């Protein structure tokens, strides 16, 4: 389904709070997701990810604040939003007695597609999910990975602009995970906005354009993946790789002006150099290294692993 207004964000969450009896699941959260973006939604168990997803897909109404999907308010424009989204829950909610074809045909009919259109769409989504040869199989007899593909195919039947996927890779073997991620990349290439909640942090790092980290109902970070993976803005961290003819013993890198710390990895020709960008610049540090006659192989900005960023931003223990 296309839309004429392409300026608004796909999802806007503004100061949303939500409670279940005494327990506050979300505390004044705000974030935005641009169109045609693959956005990761990461948080420990009980952080409020599923609650946020259910609010976005209109299953729950926000108690405080507002959420807009393609500019439509989730509390007011439920039908409009439901036509444009596809939600895949974290559990396999499927009619297991049906065949793959019947299952997709059922949802196609539910979205009002004609028989001819359904035939075409089902063929397309089964090809996309590589399940074309299994259309007559009963869902109950399929492996978990295949059921997940059918579930994804179901989400795509009404050609939604926004896909909301709650833990889509949980319980899948490595091959199935990699294949699922490849399908998601393909879908992003087709112009879909994808909001994916997952615990598989390393995969998100490769897959997502942006990420939101949530912990104990609060957004700890929301922005581009590069921004999260780079170190904090106060200090710059670079990784220096030197050649085999580098001088033995300690190299006085820490004497370069502005350099705060140097860490050498034992047995490796590699240093991690931290410097204050307010005192010096990357070029100046590189110039200093050349002056020290160090045989430089590479000098690149160091990026934290997503797991490290996640650990830094979230707290220990169960909320």
């Amino acid at each position, binding site marked *: 389904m296309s839309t004429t207004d392409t300026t608004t964000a796909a999802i806007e969450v503004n100061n949303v709070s939500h409670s279940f009896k005494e327990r506050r699941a979300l505390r004044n959260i705000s974030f935005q997701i641009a169109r045609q973006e693959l956005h990761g939604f990461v948080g420990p168990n009980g952080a409020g990810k599923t609650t946020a997803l259910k609010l976005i897909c209109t299953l729950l109404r926000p108690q405080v604040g507002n959420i807009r999907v393609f500019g439509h308010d989730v509390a007011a424009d439920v039908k409009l939003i439901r036509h444009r989204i596809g939600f895949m829950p974290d559990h396999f909610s499927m009619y297991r*007695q049906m065949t793959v074809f019947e299952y997709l045909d059922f949802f*196609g009919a539910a979205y009002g597609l004609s028989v001819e259109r359904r035939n075409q769409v089902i063929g397309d989504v089964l090809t996309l999910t590589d399940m074309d040869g299994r259309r007559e199989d009963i869902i*109950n007899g399929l492996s978990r990975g295949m059921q997940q593909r059918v579930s994804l195919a*179901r989400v795509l039947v009404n050609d939604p602009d926004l896909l909301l996927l709650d833990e889509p890779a949980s319980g899948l073997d490595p091959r199935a995970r990699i294949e699922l991620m490849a399908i998601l990349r393909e879908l992003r290439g087709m112009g879909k906005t994808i909001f994916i909640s997952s615990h598989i942090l390393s995969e998100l790092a490769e897959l997502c354009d942006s990420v939101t980290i949530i912990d104990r109902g609060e957004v700890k970070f929301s922005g581009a993946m590069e921004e999260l993976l780079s170190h904090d803005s106060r200090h710059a961290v670079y990784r220096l790789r030197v050649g085999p003819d580098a001088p033995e013993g300690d190299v006085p890198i820490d004497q370069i002006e502005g350099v705060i710390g140097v860490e050498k990895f034992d047995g490796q020709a590699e240093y991690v150099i931290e410097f204050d960008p307010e005192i010096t610049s990357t070029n100046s540090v590189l110039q200093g290294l050349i002056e020290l006659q160090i045989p430089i192989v590479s000098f690149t900005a160091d990026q934290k692993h997503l797991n490290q960023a996640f650990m830094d931003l979230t707290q220990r223990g169960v909320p």
Partner: protein
Amino acid sequence: MLGGTTALFTRGLRLDARLLRSHLLRFLFAVLIFSGLVWTHINSNTLGAPGREFFRSITYLNVAFISLAGISFFSTAITEEKEEGTLGLLLMAGISPLGILLGKSTTRVLTALFLLLAQFPFTLLAITLGGVTIRQIFAAYFALFAYLAFLSNFALFASVYCRRSGKAGGFTCVVVAIPMILPFIGPRWIAWLSRRMAAVGADTDTGFFAAASSAIDAITNVSVLVRIDAILTTGFSESPVSLQVVLHLVSALAFFLLSWATFDSLTSDHSTEPTRLIDVPQRGKRRENGLNRVWRNYMMWKDFCFMTGGVKWWLIKFALYGIGLATVAIVLYWTTGTAISSGIGQGGEIIVGAMAIAIMVELSIYASNVFRQELRDKTFLTITLLPISTARMAYAKVAGCLLALVPAVGYFVLGALLDPASLMELLELPLVWAGIVFFVLFLHMTAYFSLIVKWGALPLALAVASLFSVGCVTPLAAIPILLVTEMTGDEAAMIMMMIYFGCVSAAALQVLIGLKLRSAAAQ
């Protein structure tokens, strides 16, 4: 074995102690006993033997309680472990089948037993009120304990045999219902039928009628209600150990041993092959014959094909009902000696009655499953996100269930065509319409309970309907009914009031079901 059994036993007791509903049930029981005592005290001037009437009400209450516990509580002892997938874990933990059976069932039986024991001192008050002896009280408790032992062990076997709690509860419900109902309606039905047959010159002293009478007599001997009636007659001096007690205790032991003997074979996973109620057409044939293509009313299609069994079960039901009715026709032919066509013609009334019961049974089962299945399979969330209102979705599901009634309705219409006069006569009675409305209300209640309880929605609805119809609705409805009757002077107005109350209550339940469905999707 003892360690594992004790662990299961203590876990069961702890769980029971933690659950609020267990304590509420005990409190409700105490309130009911107290109400019985007050009622007896108030009416002691008009009652010949107030102590006996008080004790009778307590005993009936206990029978109702044990029966309900059998259907819902005892019958889930093993199925709940199967459904949660924890039975294998228990076996892997080194607990033997006997240990599991003892550990799981003993807690439940003890919970029920404690309730009976706790009330025993209070029931002795009946002696001071007069009209009942200590022998009668002991005999009644012997009968109740034997019934409890039988039912708990039969339910345990049903729980071992069945994969799902609902099915185990259903089996137990049949075993509870037959000795409850048959001794009271069976002889009347036989008498009515033999009168009819005698009118056409049949011999009603031998053959089918004699066999049916013997079967009813045998069932009567094991009926706890019949035994309690016998105990509470004036001048009772029999031994507390009656045939009913012996038969129930022997059956209890037999069912426990059967559960133990068949545990391994019945609880192991037989097959992981996918199964379904309807046939999967061969590849390529689907589009040629148009079978299994989703209908325009997709929700109706889904529930008709996958909840009620679809066309395949239509055909099976057509055959089963047909065989049942043909059997009746043949029996009529044998007993009357007249032509089958003539027999069927006279049996129109029987066909209508039998199919009315079939329709009621089918509807009750569908009402308890129509929403429950979606919740159990966690599919409700997915269909809630479809561009259709909850109300439309619910009605479409109901329509799918109604479509499954075609075989029963077909035979009902056939019966009505064979004997239209009787049906018209029946439909002219306002009480019949009140009964239909009450049944519709019962279906709503079942559907609502299926959304709020994990299992046993149907027995719960049956119990609530029975309690309300005799305990609350009748006295509450009596006031406006009497007023209306007084004002209009028309007895039919009384029935109209009942119909009105039934319709309003059903509408209120529809609203509640809608609200519950909406909240269930978000959970």
